[in-house]
């Protein structure tokens, strides 16, 4: 059953990479918080935004749709959207829904940031 327990916090990490730490359950109740966090991250003028799912307990199909709309916003602004901390189950969900076709998926934050730093150097 959907609950309202969701939080999103923005951190500035590497130059031009913003990290959004997601916590709790991503369902219809997460929409406002998620949009607000994305808007805050965008204000840092990042080249990439990393969505950190390591504290996410649950995502339903509405939550996946919210992530799709974030992805559309990111691509509008030419911002790369990266993900990390997805459980094996949600990596599979990202593959089923084919979100993974459009978002780089990394096991953890350090791997994601290292990959991003390499890309930036290249």
């Amino acid at each position, binding site marked *: 059953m959907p609950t309202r327990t969701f939080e999103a916090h923005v951190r500035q990490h590497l130059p031009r990479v913003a990290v959004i730490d997601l916590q709790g359950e991503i369902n219809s109740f997460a929409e406002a918080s998620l949009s607000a966090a994305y808007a805050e991250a965008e204000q840092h003028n990042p080249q990439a935004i990393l969505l950190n799912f390591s504290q996410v307990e649950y*995502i*339903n199909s509405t939550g996946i749709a919210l992530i799709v709309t974030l992805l559309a916003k990111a691509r509008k602004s030419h911002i790369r959207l990266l993900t990390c901390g997805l459980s094996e189950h949600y990596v599979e969900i990202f593959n089923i829904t084919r979100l993974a076709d459009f978002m780089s*998926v990394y096991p953890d934050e350090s791997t994601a940031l290292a990959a991003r730093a390499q890309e930036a150097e290249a």
Partner: protein
Amino acid sequence: MSYPVDPNATPMPAAATSAPQTETAETVETVEIIETVGAAPQVSATPGSRDAAYWAKQSAHLKVSAAPGNQVNNVDGRSAVGPLQGFGKMWQKTYRLRLVGCSATPAEVIAAWKENFPKFWPRGNRFYVPLTGIAPGEVAMLTVRPGGMPLSTGVLVLYADDESFTLMTPQGHMFAGWITFSAYRKDDVTIAQAQVLMRANDPIYEVGLRLGGHHAEDKFWKQTLRAVGAHFNVTDEPVESENLCVDPRLRWSYAGNIVHNAAIRTTLLGPTRWFRKA
């Protein structure tokens, strides 16, 4: 698990536009069609994920066990496609009906919706319920008549829990995307909702959507919601709708989706089903 998955796609500039609207109730026309076909569900069972049973399991290609009534099977062997894999503008369409005066809980509404899914569709359209009903991983065939022309396609049940379920379309469908049916409580009223996140699958469908297809789809889901309302004796409430253009850009890299166009295939292969029948 495979990391990283490195995407390779074109940019999507967008400008969101919103067009909320409401409409008055109209006569509800539904047909009673319950046909059961299909294979056993494939349910994800990753340990440790409490929602694992709600999601379909990953499968490269869709498969229905039989094409009912010798319908053209435009589903077997296709992949499911999300709103990111289509060609046209990306739309989020939301239709809501307040079930005022109805004491049914969201779970009861969704249970009834799953059980009566074909009955709630507008007349002339058919949804072939799989043997085990609306369950994660099930693949259902359907026939719709956009513009009066029969079109056989299908859907994958991507997600289903007690208060929502989501259908994902295959290649060749009119649109690439998801339809989520849900119910929730707001201001002490249960609200039934259908939300479509989609883009036309190919250029032909995009033209069709612009030439009346969007209007027809709005009408389709409004009628469906009114049928849901009628099931719960709610007949006077208007269906609210909101159409949001999430991404106005056409994705030309997906123009080749036209090779799977189910409308073309149904038109070309439809007559041959009579020979197959014989």
